[in-house]
């Protein structure tokens, strides 16, 4: 197998692996473009947060995970789900609110998950996923498991109390967790400089006697190197860490935001010159990969996304009489049976007598 050998490279990456990551990055880019089109065509509802521009930070960190490591993220999660191996069909169907979406049409864009791939959501309250991921790391330690948790958050989450509480617990209990701060420079429309008294976000880890590092989030190799190393330390030494990946989102906070009230078109164009897909293609080119191969990867990604849209279009809506399915665990219906008398009109049919607890 050919190995890329750059004298200044911090990390040696197999060229086949690199090509695989490149494909995933393209898949995410094309997926997000399709999601935006479908949202604007009103086939996707609610909030829809796109991650175009963040592909190297997303793919690089997820590819550093071992198969049985756990992943927890915030709501800008399409890319993380795809990188972790959730099928584009299941993700797009979830965005469409369809029966065979990865959360069966109950979660939507912000609440993707795939337990089989160790991906535990897709959480919509800024910072709320941090204590949960911390508890998962605690559980791994309690069981003597060698796994680690990767917990993604945005730059806006570092000013929440949950960030402080989670980092403190992770450090005081020596938990195997890496907090990945995707710093795309804006928490919604508020820049890091305007929001954070210490805008070098990785430095905050020091307050908890925890390792904190910053990496160029558009440099795939650098992201893989840093996240692999920190995850390894988390697994082997039960040492938590903060990894801040500097990147940029090309689109607005969500599809509904044009993204220009707080930044200029020029800034976006400047940032696009640092595009992680272009950088990775350049890297492949320098290793002798033909442009035709890269173009084929792009076409392949576009095809996969088209198939996903087709699948979502033809997938049925969730059954109405299963409205309450999943709210409570199987077996709960008996506990709720005595709640029926006097229940509000409609709930009798849809909740208590319907899918509850099945």
């Amino acid at each position, binding site marked *: 197998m050919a190995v890329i050998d750059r004298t200044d490279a911090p990390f040696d990456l197999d060229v086949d692996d690199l090509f695989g990551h490149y494909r995933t990055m393209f898949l995410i880019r094309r997926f997000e473009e399709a999601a935006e089109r479908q949202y604007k065509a009103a086939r996707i509802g609610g909030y829809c947060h796109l991650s175009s521009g963040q592909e190297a930070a997303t793919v690089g960190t997820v590819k550093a995970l071992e198969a049985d490591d756990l992943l927890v993220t915030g709501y800008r999660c399409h890319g993380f789900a795809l990188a972790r191996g959730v099928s584009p069909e299941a993700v797009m169907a979830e965005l469409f609110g369809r029966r065979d979406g990865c*959360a069966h049409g*109950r*979660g939507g864009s912000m609440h993707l998950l795939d337990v089989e791939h160790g991906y535990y959501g897709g959480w919509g309250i800024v910072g709320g996923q941090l204590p949960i991921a911390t*508890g998962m*790391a605690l559980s791994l330690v309690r069981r003597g498991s060698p796994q680690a948790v990767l917990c993604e958050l945005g730059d806006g989450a570092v000013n929440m109390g949950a960030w402080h509480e989670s980092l403190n*617990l992770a450090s005081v209990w020596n938990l195997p967790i890496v907090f990945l701060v995707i710093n795309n420079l804006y928490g919604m429309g508020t820049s890091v400089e305007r929001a954070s008294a210490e805008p070098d976000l990785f430095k905050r880890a020091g307050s908890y006697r925890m390792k904190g590092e910053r990496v160029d989030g558009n440099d795939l190799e650098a992201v893989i190197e840093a996240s692999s190393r920190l995850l390894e330390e988390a697994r082997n030494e039960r040492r938590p860490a903060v990894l801040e990946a500097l990147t940029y989102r090309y689109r607005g906070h969500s599809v509904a935001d044009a993204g220009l009230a707080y930044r200029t078109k020029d800034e976006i164009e400047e940032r696009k010159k640092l595009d992680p897909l272009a950088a990775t293609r350049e890297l492949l080119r320098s290793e002798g990969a033909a442009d035709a191969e890269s173009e084929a990867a792009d076409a392949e990604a576009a095809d996969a996304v088209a198939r996903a849209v087709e699948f979502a279009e033809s997938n049925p809506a969730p059954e109405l009489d299963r409205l309450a399915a*999943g709210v409570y665990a199987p077996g709960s219906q008996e506990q709720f049976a*005595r709640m029926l008398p006097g229940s509000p009109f409609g709930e009798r049919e849809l909740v208590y007598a319907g899918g509850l607890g099945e």
Partner: protein
Amino acid sequence: MNPVELEVEPKVAAPAPAGSETMNYREALRLAMRQEMERDERVFLMGEEVGLFDGSYKVSAGLMEEFGPDRVRDTPISEEGFLGAGVGAAMLGERPIVEVMTLNFVLVAMDQVINHAAKVGAMFGGEVRCPLVIRTPNGAGNQLTAQHSQSFDGWFAGTPGLKVVAPASPADAKGLLKAAIRDDDPVLVIENLPIYKEKGEVDLDPDLITPIGLAAVAREGSDLTVVAHSFATVRALRVAEKLAAEAGVSIEVVDLRSLRPLDVETLAASVSKTNRALCVEEGWPSYGVSAEIAARIQYACFDDLDSPVERVGMAEVPLPYAKELELAAMPTEARIEAAIRRQLELTP
């Protein structure tokens, strides 16, 4: 990673004097935790002062010594952090019991309870569950004042995705806590500060649970039904005895035990028999548990009612410090008795 699945057939409580013991409410809770920790290694307790300190209210006394600091885990004062950690551990199939010192402090972790624990099952399409137990006392009456005397039982009971139980006796404290630990959903176990010292007979059978979703007729009667839970049940039973002796009236007391699921069948059957209902709670009645009970009763028992459903709860003020003012605000036995007398048109 592979949790041990234990098949346990819950037995419904039946009086079994052999193998029972008189103990107080906190000892009954401790017995439940000890038995469940012995039975299932996925069960662990965490919270502020639960270990070395033996528990703020001594519920977990001795458990750290018995099970070690991993299974009885002291936490920093960090409710959002450790309650959320309980959610995460539960999602991986563990059975965490998170003790929060009082219900008032759950408020700083409310995001984890309402936006996270309660959402796991539904929001992820049933793909993952959250078998978390949160234990915390409500209650007032020790001049703890405005920030430490609140009962928000109705907030939680009104949240789909949560189950809420509120035992009023040592036997149910043991039985319901065990049921909560074995349940596959997040269960809030509302304990109560004044009841911690109340004594009662508790069956020691480790497999005897009190089923969630089943109310109890704590006292049979024919003239009026008092619907209560937690410490209000204790008060209602005292008033019922007093009125039986002094006025010859027969009060039935329905102890809800579970707030969500709510056993409307039992309380509706009782009200249909007595034709009168008084709802009593420790919390503020506006938008509270008693509001919900009254709505259910009017719907289920409309034709059976001889008088409007009445309510007694905390006076709607932040609880004051001065003993006299505090007492004036509480749903005391005197206020419960006055409400019953009014409803039955008895002379005070």
